[in-house]
């Protein structure tokens, strides 16, 4: 048990280290960021990205990949800015239906043994189309309670940090501490042995997808709380950002090896990378490219650490 814990802890070292390095660099470049307001501004947009990353992580835990994440979060944002404000009951019903649809996708993928990449690719068109139907032009308004929730100023630490910690802790308990989480990761690790042990794989996959849908819904709501209005293309970047966040946080594509705390840290790192680059006054032309470079550097660090870990084990 102690060994498992330490192995998990080691997987968290690199994400945590790269986040603190990046944060230190930002503070060094712009000391004024080292304040309550500064931190809030730096990490504000991280909350929806962290939620989307957790959602992607849940899908990756069962060895699937969700390419519809960005379109789905955009769709939820559109629902939040229209129905959830004007007709909360209908809005909640739509969002509940969307979560149910996610569970259904999980069931279909399992029963027909379909490649998740293609099914979610198709779903990304469906969500995108629904979003365009709801909001053909950017618009809508965030419900007041959502706006309040995202702009509330808790004592000691800014909302963005508090929310990230809460998200990480809740996801940690679901994925790492509950029997459901063990089951989901088990499906990713060795589906057949979980099946032989008498568990229902369909149910496990459906639950993983439903939970992913739930977190993605929260991501969409949080995003509208920050932007105050929505657009059908508002979150398309989230598909790739969420995958990159999971990997940065020490997760793997296969084998059910995922880390919720790492995923949240990965999302924070990606958000911070953007701010870091603008503080460096890099020409806007190269901003995306530098983000790619940061991704590569962090992964190179991880490789080095993995090698060290292996060497330790051999001793």
């Amino acid at each position, binding site marked *: 048990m102690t060994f498992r814990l330490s192995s998990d802890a080691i997987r968290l070292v690199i994400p945590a280290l790269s986040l603190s390095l990046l944060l230190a660099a930002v503070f060094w470049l712009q000391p004024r960021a080292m304040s309550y307001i500064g931190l809030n501004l730096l990490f504000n947009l991280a909350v929806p990205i962290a939620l989307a990353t957790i959602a992607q992580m849940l899908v990756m835990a069962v060895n699937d990949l969700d390419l519809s994440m960005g379109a789905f979060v955009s769709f939820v944002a559109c629902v939040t800015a229209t129905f959830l404000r004007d007709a909360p009951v209908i809005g909640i019903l739509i969002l509940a239906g969307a979560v149910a649809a996610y569970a259904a996708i999980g069931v279909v993928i399992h029963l027909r043994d379909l490649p998740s990449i293609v099914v979610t690719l198709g779903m990304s068109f*469906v969500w995108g*189309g629904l979003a365009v139907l709801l909001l053909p032009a950017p618009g809508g308004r965030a419900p007041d309670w959502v706006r309040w929730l995202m702009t509330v100023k808790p004592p000691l630490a800014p909302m963005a940090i508090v929310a990230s910690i809460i998200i990480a802790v809740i996801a940690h308990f679901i994925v790492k501490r509950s029997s459901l989480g063990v089951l989901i990761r088990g499906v990713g690790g060795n589906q057949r042995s979980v099946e032989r042990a008498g568990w229902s794989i369909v149910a496990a996959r459906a639950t993983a997808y439903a939970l992913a849908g739930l977190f993605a819904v929260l991501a969409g709501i949080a995003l509208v709380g920050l932007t105050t209005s929505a657009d059908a293309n508002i979150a398309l970047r989230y598909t790739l950002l969420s995958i990159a966040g999971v990997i940065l946080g020490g997760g793997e*594509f296969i084998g059910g090896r995922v880390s919720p705390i790492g995923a949240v840290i990965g999302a924070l790192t990606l958000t911070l990378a953007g701010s870091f680059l603008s503080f460096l006054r890099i020409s806007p032309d190269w901003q995306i*490219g530098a983000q790619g470079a940061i991704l590569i550097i962090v992964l190179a660090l991880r490789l080095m650490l993995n090698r060290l870990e292996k060497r330790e084990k051999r001793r």
Partner: protein
Amino acid sequence: MNALVLQFGKPWIWSWLAAFVVWFLTIMVTGGAGTLGLSQAALTFAAFSVIVGIGQMFVITLGPGNIDLSVPATMTLAGTVALKLMNVENGMILPGLLLAVLIGLGVGLCNYTLIKALRIPPIIATLSMSFIVQSAAIWTNRGLRIKPPSVLAEFTTTNTLGVPNVAIIAFLISILAWILLEKTIYGRWISAIGQSMPAARMAGIPVDGTRFVTYLFCAVLASISGYLLACFSGGAALNMGAEYLLMSIAVVVIGGTAVAGGDSNVPGIWGASLFMFLVVSMLNTYGLGAGIRLIMTGLIIISVIMLAGGRRGMR
């Protein structure tokens, strides 16, 4: 008759059937008018997806997790830089093409270096690379829209014997790909690697070399497609590759190539590319709005994969 029944066992037949049904439904509405125009447009637009799709298919054949996300960025960079070099001069057509191919080789080389040297999963490696390539494209483009040389512009937009020239080029590339895949040892190698990398390695197949060449091939095809697309559309645009990210994956899978790797086919790419274009034009003909059109596209993709698929998922 028996031969006909045998054909139904082939995975690519479904994409052709689907394409034909959609084509038929469209000309039913127009009452036969514009049949030739529709077919020529379908062939033209399918050609670009075919060229990109073939490269993506070779990469996907390498096995689970192998996918090239840098395709859109490579297309954009190749198109932009080549047009800039040619600078509307007809004499520079060949150097421009050469430069595009060189860019493809460069991107492919970087992609595989990241995958091999840093052991980054191909999805993340090509994603990070695409950020850098996209930045390079933004940097070189600077919002300029340079027209293609007149000979090249005319060549890409006209027909020979009623068949669009770009479709002929795509057809020649497909034949080359088919020969590579079915008749050469290299084709056998990538299938073997896709079925089981350890087994391929044991059998003495040069796994690293083969994967390297495959990533090069994919990037080069993407850059050729970008070169042609930029000339066809009268200049390079920064977002011109964007839709080919999902498109290249969709045509490969709908075409009947196993997402789990090790089993691919060239004819299916053509069927799927024609199908993807025809679906959109059919829904346009029916006068449906953008939202409904997207939803229908998604549902059709999912139905096709449910009908054709279920052999081996990406697990």
